[in-house]
């Protein structure tokens, strides 16, 4: 059977699909449910049966679960230095790494069938080996307008405020996945997180607050229980360089 190239998030039925380097195959299982399989170059990477539901949905997921859950943090490195004058403010779009999840729904309840690594997953160390943290890594361009949707990348509007009385250089932004909220658009790879407000406190420290949702008309991700964000939104402090 010819594999159909997936064009976006949303519901998928029985069939064969291409997503990144993977082939996803969904077949009917005795009319009781479906059989789900993901393979790469012929080798099966994920394989499961779903009984009592035919409802399979592709959604974006926070980038901390695959290849392995080793951190809760995401470090977004800017591809060019942003020099900000004293007391100045600016705003721009960045891309944030995300992975892809396959949910099986029964009414409003769901389970995760598969987690697919998104855009070349990489990790980095923020800070020193003894005091720092490991974070999922992405190097992003800075965009004036919302960039074109890509698989494995969400977008966010970043607002930066230099509170100091001196010039500062911003090169990276640290995020905590527990504070992120993911939104997506069905039928396309458009995904976004809420506005990120970066307040620069000194030449080497800053804090990131998680602001308003700017992704209008998009669907909020049903967060898996283990990643359901707390009701209180904390700031993420960047103590080891900006």
């Amino acid at each position: 059977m010819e594999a159909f190239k997936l064009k976006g998030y949303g519901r998928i039925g029985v069939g064969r699909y291409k997503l990144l380097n993977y082939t996803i195959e969904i077949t009917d299982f005795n009319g009781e449910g479906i059989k789900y399989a993901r393979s790469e170059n012929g080798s099966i990477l994920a394989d499961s049966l779903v009984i009592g539901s035919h409802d399979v949905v592709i959604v974006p997921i926070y980038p901390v679960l695959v290849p392995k859950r080793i951190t809760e943090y995401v470090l977004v490195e800017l591809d060019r230095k942003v020099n900000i004058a004293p007391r100045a403010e600016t705003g721009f779009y960045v891309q944030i790494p995300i992975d892809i999840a396959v949910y099986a729904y029964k009414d409003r309840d769901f389970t995760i069938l598969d987690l697919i690594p998104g855009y070349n997953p990489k990790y980095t160390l923020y800070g020193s080996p003894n005091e720092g943290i490991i974070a999922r890594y992405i190097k992003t361009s800075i965009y004036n307008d919302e960039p074109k949707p890509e698989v494995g990348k969400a977008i966010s509007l970043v607002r930066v405020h230099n509170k100091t009385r001196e010039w500062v250089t911003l090169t990276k932004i640290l995020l905590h996945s527990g504070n992120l909220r993911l939104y997506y658009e069905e039928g396309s790879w458009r995904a976004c997180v809420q506005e990120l407000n970066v307040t620069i406190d000194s030449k080497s420290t800053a804090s990131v607050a998680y602001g308003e949702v700017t992704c209008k008309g998009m669907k909020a991700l049903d967060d898996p229980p283990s990643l359901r964000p707390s009701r209180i939104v904390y700031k993420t402090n960047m103590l080891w360089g900006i």
Partner: protein
Amino acid sequence: MVDFGDVTGGFSWFTNINWLQIFIAIVIFILGVFIAYVARKLFYRALIKFVPKTVAHNTARIIYYALVIIFAISALGTLGIDLTALIIAGGIIGIILGFALQSVTANLVSGLFLYWERPLKPGDVVEVDGHAGVVLDISIMSTKIRGFDGVLIRVPNEKVFSAVIKNIGANVARRLELAIGIAYKEDAEKAVDVITKVVNEHPFVLVHPEPEVFVSNLGNSSVDITVRVWTPTSEWMNVRKDLLWKIKKAITEAGIEIPFPQSDVWFRSPLEVRVKSDNEEN
């Protein structure tokens, strides 16, 4: 005739008792027990913040009994009982016990210092006194380590305290170093490029600190390339296995030879090589 004149004569000791001294002794003892009880509670609450529950409990108990003994001796002292013999006997017993329990005491004190300094904690991957593994428990007398082969190792705290401790899991990131030799005839630059590509593609090779791939030595049989990368500590062993295999595969696929040790043997005098023909052999 029976003299009933001194009917209380048989109870003279009763009248000679200094009831005030007894009362003072009892008060000292009861007060002492109360002070010891309060001290035990206070020490327990203070210690529980720094050391495990069992250690805090036992230390508080030792303090309690020590104070009770001190107050009991003081109480006996007020009654005029000569405690010199008791103190001498206690001293001698103390010396004997001191010698007998030397190692026990050393382990106990070392255990307390280990709790205080915390060079390791349960769950850490460590190497202590030549034993590598995961720390299971640090008790008052010994530290238990589960070796990588699954064997339970008990190291007395005295040894742990004086040994060089390598705490492998204390930091979030750890450096990994690999040495790869390629044949002298091969293009080292190409090999470095191939290895760098493999390193950069591995998800758990950290972007920062940046990986290093460089020619580090011109060996006897090979040009040695060193790979230095940082990985999350939890993934160090997996990355080591995975990366070494992927580098070997990539180098082989690129047609680069990994040589085995070679030796050139030179003869002082020219060698004569005699080739026998089939006819000669027959």
